């Protein structure tokens, strides 16, 4: 496979990551398209034999962060305490998935990125560190904080949902 074909092969993974990140399919595909165009414009900077997937995710991550800065949103989002919102009544595992997506939206950007790159994409800590441009130790501490926070958010919402059903 040449590099162009290898990039096409990564499109499904880029789309999935963008969709979880943006939640709106059309906006997500726009992000992927921007990412592909940026990647092809800089293809001369890619070193064949290195990790193409990590390279593409780096580009997409940077585009996403830049877009958020342009929108005037700080990349570090402060978080309201869990609960208090409209929580839908429980219905099997669908609840867990919806809660998970909502709770992800409440994580600060830097923690969400690490949780998704490791959890959704299965990137190694080292590749995640490359994508985000931070040391591996930072990846580990963000991951630990992000996962624990996510666990509490989901547990909190589930408990509240159960209370409402009763």
């Amino acid at each position, binding site marked *: *496979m*040449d590099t*162009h*074909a290898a*990039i*096409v*092969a990564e*499109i*499904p*993974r880029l*789309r*999935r990551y963008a*969709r*979880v990140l943006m939640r709106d399919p059309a906006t997500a*595909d726009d992000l*992927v*398209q921007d990412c*592909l*165009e940026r990647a*092809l*414009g800089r*293809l001369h900077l890619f070193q064949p034999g290195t990790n193409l997937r990590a390279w593409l995710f780096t580009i997409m991550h940077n585009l996403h962060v830049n877009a958020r800065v342009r929108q005037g949103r700080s990349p570090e989002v402060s978080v309201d305490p869990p609960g208090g919102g409209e929580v839908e009544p429980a219905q099997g595992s669908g609840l*867990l*998935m919806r809660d*998970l*997506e909502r709770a992800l939206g409440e994580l600060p950007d830097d923690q969400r990125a690490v*949780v*998704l790159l*490791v*959890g*959704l994409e*299965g990137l*190694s*800590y080292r590749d995640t560190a490359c994508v985000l441009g931070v040391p591996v130790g930072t990846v*580990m*501490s963000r*991951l*630990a*904080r992000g*996962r*624990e926070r*996510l*666990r509490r958010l*989901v*547990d909190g919402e589930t408990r509240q949902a159960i209370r409402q059903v009763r």
Partner: protein
Amino acid sequence: MTDRRSIGDMELNAYLDGELESSARAEVEAWLATHPDDDARVAGWRRQKDALAELSAEVLNAAIPPSLSRAVTRRRPAARSWMRAAAAVLLVVAGTAGGWYGHGALLQPSAVASADGDFVRNALGAHVVFAPEQRHPVEVWANKEEAHLVQWLSRRLGHEVKPPPLASAGYHLVGGRLIADDGGPAAQYMYEDSKGRRITLYVRRSMDHGTTAFRFAEERKLSAFYWIDGPLAYAIIGEMPRDELLTLARVVHGELEHGG
């Protein structure tokens, strides 16, 4: 509980993600065996990680929108004609010297699921016969008469069958031919990459007008993905690993779905 923090959350996460050396792994396992709270939290993170992996998983198997695959194509430098000529010469040499294609017993019926067996077996058979052909790989060449080719095959199949553009995946259309299949006419489009590797797309009217997911079959070195989309059944075949062909199948499906 005085040693509560001697194994911290960062290490527990690294354990969960398989990032620890075996000795450190053993230490964490010993710790978890005696610290049920941490054990429960690790189990919670593991459930969370599994759930994350399921998020939007359907996108992984969806057709690739042409707007995205073409974003890659637009920037692809055109293959130079002398490279194509060189590739063709190489192919002639390889075709003369090699020759695994010639084996008549290549297709063993048992390796293909019987329900769709006929369709994909015919498609594989057509690939085996025509893909190695040097002088007459196609009846109608795309570089001379693509419009006529599409019109002709569409008329014979009784439904429009446009060859999807696969430049984003590195393949250009060589041409196509009409094939006599069990149930009537079938169309075979042949594509080639810059190294002269060929893939074929085989199309026939479907019997049941349903829609199916991609299904996979392989025969020796050949891989095939086949599916039904309404009135037409498709099979894409190439001598390559499953994952590489799956990408092509997704591009083909995306192009067909969005009208080519």
